[in-house]
Structure formats: C-alpha cells, structure tokens
C-alpha cells in the first residue's frame, strides 16, 4: 500500500474530534468528568495512591497486632478481634497493597519507557482500577458489619467452611478478593500486550529497558498464577452457598485440595511481588552508578527462569500435611534451586554497583537496604526449604520473620526507593534528601529490630497467630523489643508521609531528568503533557537519554519521531512487531468514557448482593454488567484505512492479522482461561487419584452424549476457522451466517456436555461436583462465544462494520477455537471416565 487514502469520513472518524489540536484531543477531562479519564498516567496514579492507602490501613492493623503482643497476658484485643486483625493485615497487604501498587507503577511507567502515548487498552485500565477499588471496599466494609474475615490470609478449609465459619465473613473475603483479582488479571493482559505491541520504532526486545522485561514476565505469571486461586475461591464459595462438597472428606473431597490450589497461586504470588520491585532496583541502580546494568542478558535469563521455576515450588508450604516424602523431596530440591536465578540477579546488581562510585541518594539508600534485607530473607528461605528444619519452624515466628524479610526487604524497600525516585516525575518537585535519609534509617532500624528478633522468638517456640502468651518462657523481652521496633518502623513511614505532603508545595522544582537517568520516561520535563510524546522517537539503545544526544539536546516537543501528525481527530499511538519493534500499524485509542466504571460498578453490585444473599439484585447486576461490556464494544470500527505515520512509514490503522494488539490480547485472555481450566482439571485428577473408592461411586458419563459433545466441539472448531476466512475475504453476508452457525454449535456443545453427565450427582461426591464445575466453566466460555458471535452478527447487520473491518470476527475465531478445544478436552476426560471407568 503506497497511496495514503484519507477519505473524509469513514467509521473510524465518527468518534474523532477533527477540529481540535492534539493537545485538546488528549486533554484530561475536568470537573466530574475527571472520573472518566482513561489515561494511563491517571489510572496508574490512582492505583498507586489507593494501594498506599491500603498499606497504611494494613500497617495500622499490624501495629494493633504488635501492641497486643507487647506484654504477656495482654487484653488489648480479644481473641476474635486478634484473628480478624492479623487476617485482614495479611490479606490487605498481599492482595490490595502489594500487587496493585506495583501494577500501578507499571501502568504509569511502561508506556513512557517504551515510547507509547498511552497503555494499549486504556478503558480496560480504568475498568481494572474500579474493580480493584470496589473489591477493596467490599473487603474492608466487612469491618462495618463486624464480619471481618478471621481465617488467616490463606483461608484454610475446613476452618472457612460453613460448619466452622458461619455468617458472611468468609464470603466477604472470597468474593471481594476474587473481584480485586479480576483487576490484577486484566491489568496483566493489558501490560503484556502493551509491552509486546506498542514500543517506539526500532525498540526490539533486547533494547527494552530492563523494567519492561520484569513487568512482562510478572504479567505472564499473574495470568497463569491467579487462576488457581480464582477457581479455589469459586469452589469454596460454591461450597458455602450451595453445599457442593469439594473439600469434604466424607464424600471424597479433600481439604488439601484447597491448599494445593491456594499455594499454586500463593507461591508464584511472592515472586509476582518481588519481580517488579527488583525491576525497579534494576532501573534505579544504573542511574546512580552512571553505568548501564551489568549483564542485561543474564538478568533477562534469570527473570525468565524465576518466572517458570517459581511455579514448581508450591508444596513447600505443605511440608507438614503428610504428603509422601518423595513429593516433599521434589519440592524441597526445587525450592533450593530457585536460589540460583535469584543469586544471578543479586550478583548483577552488585556488579553494577562495583562499576562506579554510586551517588548515595535516598533512593540508593533504599536500594542498599533492599540488598541487605532481601539477602537475609533469601537465606532463611533456603533454610526453610529443608524439610526437617521446616518441620521444626513451621507456623512459628521464624516463618513470620522470614516472610517479612522477603516481602518488606524485597518489595517495600524497593517501593520506597521508587517513591523517592519517581516522585519528581509525578509531582514535579523533589522530595527532601535530608528527611529521606531519616525515613530510611528509621525504617531500616525499625524493621530489623522488629523482625530480626522474631527469628529468635520463633526458634524459642512461639507459634504465629496466637493472641497472647504466658509470662516467663523466654518470649517477653523479645516481643517487647519487636513491638518497639515496629513503632520505629511506623515512625519512618509517618515521616515519609509528612515529607510527601510537604514536598507538594515546598519541594525544589525538579526540572528535566533530575537524576540524570537514561530511560525515556524522563525525556519530557517533569509534569508534562498527558500524552507523553508529541512525536515518538526511534530508539536504538537501552538508555536513549544517555546515548542519543538529540533527545535531551532539544526541547522535548521538537525531538523527531513518528506520529507527529494526528489523523481523523483521534487519539493514537504507534504499534510494533512484538520481536523486532519495527512499526507495523497505527493503534487507535479511546477517548474518556464512563462505561468501564459503570460496568465495574454493576459487577460490584452483583458481588455485594451475592454476599447479602440478594440473588435477584445479583442477577440484575450481572445483566447490567453485560450491558456495560456491550456498550463498551459497540463502537465504530477503526480498521480498513492506511495513514501516514511520518518518517516514511505508511501504516494500516488497527490492522487485521495475528500480530494485531487485539488478537494478541485475545490470545493472552485464552492463556488465562486455560489456566482456569487447568486448575479445574488438576482438581479432577487429584480427587480421582487420591480417593479411588469415591471415584467408583460417581456415576460415569454417558458414552453417546460424550461422543456427540466431542463431535460438536470439532464442528465448532471448523466453523470458527471458516468464519475467519469469509470475514477476512469481506464476504459480509456469509460471515453473518457463519456467526449464526457458531452460535448453534456453541449451544450444541453445551447441551451435549450437560447431557453427558446428567446422571452424575454434584452433591453425591466431590468428584461429581468438580465435574459439574468444569462443565460450568466450559459452558461459560461457550456462552461468551455465543454472545460475541451474536454481537458481531448484529454489528454487521446494522452496518457498524463494513468491508475491510473484519477484526472482530478475526478475534472471535481465535476465541471460539480455544473454546472448542476446551470442549474437546473436557469431552476427552469424560470419555476416558466412561471407557476406563471411574474406579
């Protein structure tokens, strides 16, 4: 395509604001419409501020815990309150502080570091934020109803089943946290696609700033690691609401199944928390050493191997549950092994330090604090990986000490480094170096006083999660000092808050690139335009600001690049090839809108109503949410034209091919869905394998219907492929017919699968219940396929999409194929159960 056709009006201009300048098109909405902002800067900052608020709340709860333990026999908190307080402390810290605040930094920084004007799915970002906010509010509101969860942050069954936790406290946890997790997963898919598809021209994978690698791997880990807990939570909630016996050993369920699902998530979770923080360290260190990161390639390899290997360690949290010794050895060996990639990164950091004389600024102090504390936490981790030691230290304060050394050392210290480092970027002013040093030393000394002593307390036998302890068995003084230490730590955090508020008005102006960093987020003067780049500069090196004199040598808005000209009055950015980074398309971005917020709110109503057992309201909420998604997607198509991007690039807008950002997002979503299915299959196989006699009591699937369901799955697969072909060939009428065929095939799949297990009683055995749960999940995907096909057909019939705009059908085909394969897998499992028998 050489000619640039610029027809006056095509569907993509319909939402445009052609009379406005680029500044006006990108302007932040003001007044009440401020809430409708979709900009990654705004959403990222909201994630960060909200996450910090949860940190303060959870930190306050920690102080309550420490205050209760300050002297033996204390009555400051009663037992029930104590349980609630430590449960909420752990829960808020892990789910509502650590992950979201790190994702917030990624959302804020990644586009600027990579040369994009915004994240690639800005509305999804807004949606994720509101899911997180509403989910967090649901969890917190449990305090108001005096129903705060008290089952510990890992909510072990049977403690959390109806029998032992009547009332709604566990439901608050399960539903609120699942809702907030949806936010994390959507943000993960969005970050994966943003990193792969929207980089500056020429920024190949090996030219990416190291932070982007860390976030990329983390996002993949979230996509695969969160599903087991989402499934576990749904099963447990179904157990509480419907009495389905997944975890009930009297009918072949197993409490350990919950532990497996929880820790399949829980162990990767701690790496999900650590990796972005380590990525911050790897970004901050080189700036103050003045040299590039040592061993970029080694670090990339280490991060990838950490990402993978951390999925093979989960059972080290279950060493005392009576698993076969052989299993314990496997997980013990694997846990020891993960020290290797961790060590590679630490050595790369130390080698970077050794390359020059680091400037000891406040961010650097926190980085040094990270190295010191995290290495100690890693060492106690290797100790705990040894099974005999673990049996001694399990559930003691030694574990509490270990987990805070890795979490606070590995995440909170880098985070405070990041606060000091990027605060000028967000506020335009520098925080105080003098106060910053005070903050650091207070936190460092307070932290070690609190938690170092806990190693000893633990070795002296003090169990975790006890509300009080008797006098005179050697725990008194240690606990007193730990508590005083936590007050010092809190004083450090308070001083930080003071300094932050102070610097908003009195901090020195930051100017441009105040730390002399090399990465592109510092190209513009701090507090810059909302759309990041007037023109997106080509990037040849990892530290463009150090190596390319054109970048800082000129006014930022004069730096040469692509996309200087705006087309059709629309927000847009450049889209690239995932590997090489060469520009391949122009990506259209949405303008501010309330739809995602409305959708998230509708879902929040549905979730909250479920807790309150108001099921009609819940259904209304779900319908409203579906409506929200429909309105969201019901927009004029942008595909079908080419535009001049400058610097010799003439590119298609929202291209229709496998490397399209939308298609990669569809594939990313499939990854999440398959992880969900995989968790269910794990549960099926686990129960079948561990309770043969209950498996034998479960009715076998019907052979005929199983066979037919697999046939229907095959038909769906083929129809999806044909659908794509005819859509891409612009046979619009035929594509509509194929949409309808896909709908019929989806219905057939659902019906055949359900008929296949109609004789299986979900309340009869846990295996039967899990079969129905699997069916329910596959049916949900079939429903989405159906709804999507209906939606696409409607859009074609009403002329919303025309020739050259087959992207929706292109993506639908991928989704429908993925769903068809799910049907085949499920059918195959049923078939095996029929032919092999369940006994």
């Amino acid at each position, binding site marked *: 395509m050489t000619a640039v056709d610029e027809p006056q009006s095509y569907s993509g201009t319909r939402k445009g604001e052609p009379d406005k300048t680029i500044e006006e098109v990108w302007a932040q909405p003001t007044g009440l419409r401020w809430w409708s902002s979709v900009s990654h800067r705004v959403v990222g900052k909201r994630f960060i501020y909200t996450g910090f608020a949860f940190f303060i709340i959870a930190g306050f709860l920690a102080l309550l815990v420490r205050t209760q333990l300050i002297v033996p026999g204390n009555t400051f908190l009663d037992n029930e309150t104590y349980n609630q307080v430590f449960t909420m402390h752990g829960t808020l810290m892990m789910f509502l502080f650590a992950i979201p605040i790190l994702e917030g930094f990624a959302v804020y920084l990644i586009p600027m570091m990579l040369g994009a004007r915004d994240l690639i799915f800005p509305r999804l970002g807004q949606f994720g934020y509101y899911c997180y906010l509403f989910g967090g509010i649901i969890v917190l509101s449990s305090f108001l109803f005096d129903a705060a969860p008290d089952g510990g942050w890992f909510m072990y069954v049977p403690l959390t089943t109806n029998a032992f936790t009547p009332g709604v406290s566990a439901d608050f946890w399960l539903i609120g946290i699942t809702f907030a997790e949806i936010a994390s997963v959507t943000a993960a898919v969005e970050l994966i696609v943003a990193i792969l598809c929207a980089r500056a021209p020429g920024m*190949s*994978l*090996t030219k990416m700033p190291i932070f982007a690698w860390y976030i990329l791997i983390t996002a993949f880990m979230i996509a695969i690691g969160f599903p087991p807990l989402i499934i576990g939570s749904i099963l447990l909630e179904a157990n509480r609401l419907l009495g389905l016996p997944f975890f009930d050993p009297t009918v072949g369920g197993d409490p350990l199944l919950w532990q497996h699902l929880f820790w399949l998530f829980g162990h990767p979770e701690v790496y999900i928390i650590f990796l972005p923080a380590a990525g911050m360290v790897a970004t901050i260190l080189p700036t103050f050493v003045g040299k590039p990161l040592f*061993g970029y*390639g*080694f670090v*990339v*390899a*280490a991060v*990838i*191997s950490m*990402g*993978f*290997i951390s*999925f*093979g360690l989960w059972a080290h949290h279950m060493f005392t549950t009576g698993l*076969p*010794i*052989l*299993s314990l*050895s*496997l997980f*013990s*060996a*694997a846990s*020891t*092994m993960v020290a*290797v*990639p961790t060590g*590679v990164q630490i050595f790369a950091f130390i080698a970077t330090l050794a390359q020059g004389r680091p400037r000891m600024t406040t961010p650097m102090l926190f980085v040094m604090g990270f190295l010191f504390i995290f290495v100690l936490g890693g060492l106690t981790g290797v100790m705990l990986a040894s099974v005999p030691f673990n049996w001694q230290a399990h559930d003691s304060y030694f574990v509490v000490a270990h987990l805070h050394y890795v979490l606070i050392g590995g995440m909170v210290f880098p985070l405070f480094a990041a606060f000091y480092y990027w605060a000028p970027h967000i506020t335009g002013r520098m925080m105080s170096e003098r106060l910053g040093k005070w903050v650091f030393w207070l936190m460092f000394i307070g932290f070690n006083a609190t938690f170092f002593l806990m190693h000893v307390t633990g070795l002296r036998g003090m169990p975790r999660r006890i509300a009080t302890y008797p006098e005179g068995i050697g725990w008194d003084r240690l606990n007193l000092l730990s508590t005083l230490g936590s007050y010092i730590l809190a004083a450090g955090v308070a001083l930080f808050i003071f300094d932050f508020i102070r610097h908003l008005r009195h901090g020195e102006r930051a100017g441009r690139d105040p730390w002399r960093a090399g990465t592109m987020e510092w190209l513009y003067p701090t507090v810059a335009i909302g759309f990041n780049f007037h023109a997106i500069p080509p990037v040849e090196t990892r530290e463009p600001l150090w190596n390319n004199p054109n970048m800082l040598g000129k006014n930022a808005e004069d730096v040469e690049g692509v996309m200087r000209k705006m087309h059709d009055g629309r927000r847009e950015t450049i889209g690239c090839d995932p*590997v*090489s980074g060469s520009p391949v398309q122009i990506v259209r971005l949405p303008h501010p809108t309330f739809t995602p917020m409305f959708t998230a709110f509708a879902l929040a109503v549905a979730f909250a109503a479920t807790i309150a057992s108001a099921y009609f309201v819940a259904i209304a909420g779900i319908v409203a949410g579906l409506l929200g998604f429909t309105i969201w997607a019901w927009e004029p198509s942008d595909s079908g034209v080419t535009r001049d991007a400058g610097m010799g690039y003439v590119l298609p807008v929202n291209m229709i091919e496998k490397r399209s950002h939308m298609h990669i997002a569809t594939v990313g979503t499939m990854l999440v869905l398959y992880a969900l299915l995989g968790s269910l299959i794990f549960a099926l196989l*686990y129960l*079948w*394998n*561990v*309770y*043969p006699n209950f498996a034998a009591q479960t009715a076998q699937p019907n052979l005929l219907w199983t066979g037919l369901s697999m046939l229907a799955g095959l038909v769906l697969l083929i129809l999806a492929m044909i659908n794509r072909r005819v859509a891409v060939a612009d046979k619009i009428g035929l594509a509509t017919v194929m949409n309808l065929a896909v709908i019929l095939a989806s219905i057939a799949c659902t019906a055949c699968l359900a008929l296949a297990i109609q004789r299986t009683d979900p309340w009869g055995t846990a295996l039967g219940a899990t079969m129905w749960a699997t069916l329910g999940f596959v049916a949900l995907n079939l429903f989405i396929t159906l709804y999507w096909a209906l939606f696409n057909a409607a859009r074609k019939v009403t002329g919303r999409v025309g020739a050259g705009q087959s992207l929706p059908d292109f993506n639908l085909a991928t989704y429908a194929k993925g769903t068809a394969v799910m049907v085949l897998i499920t059918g195959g499992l049923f078939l095996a159960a029929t032919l092999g028998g369940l006994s």
Partner: protein
Amino acid sequence: MTALGRQVWGLTIPAVAWAAHFIAIYALISAACAPRGLIDIPLMFGLGIVATVLFGIAALWPTIRPPKGAALTGAIRVGGLIFAVAILFDVLPLIFSSGCGG
C-alpha cells in the same frame, strides 16, 4: 523468522522443557504414591529417567547450538544452564529415594 525471533525461541525452549519435565515428575510421583497406585516404583523411576533425558537434552539444545545472532546468546546460555540444573534437581529425589517413603 528473523534472527532475533529465533533467539527468542532459544530463550523459551529450555523453559518449556523444564515445565514439561516438572509436570512429568510430579505426575509420576502422584501416580505411584497416591492411594490409587496407578504405577509401581520401578516404572515411575524408569519413566522419570526417560523424561529427564529427553527434556534435559531439549533444555540444553539452544545452549549447545545457539541460534544465529548475537543479541541474546549470553542469555540463552545462562537460561539453558539454569533450566538444565533445575531439571536435574527435580529428578534427584527419584534417584535418591527408594520409594514413596510414607
């Protein structure tokens, strides 16, 4: 495929080999040591060794013959070695234990 694309594959193959090997070993232990007792210990051991050899070679392959291009060769070597060692660690319990061990 571009040279860089092949190098990216060189980074991912060992990772996938490790994952497949881990799942194989976990499944074998579960098949042999759970109440159902699908397979016996010698079979578990034999299949474990086969899986280790196969996936071990797959994990080391990009290290032995790195795909052309320079950008990621160092990373491919380090990654391949880490995953190969991890595969070895994951099979050690099979070699050193005489059974499921209660």
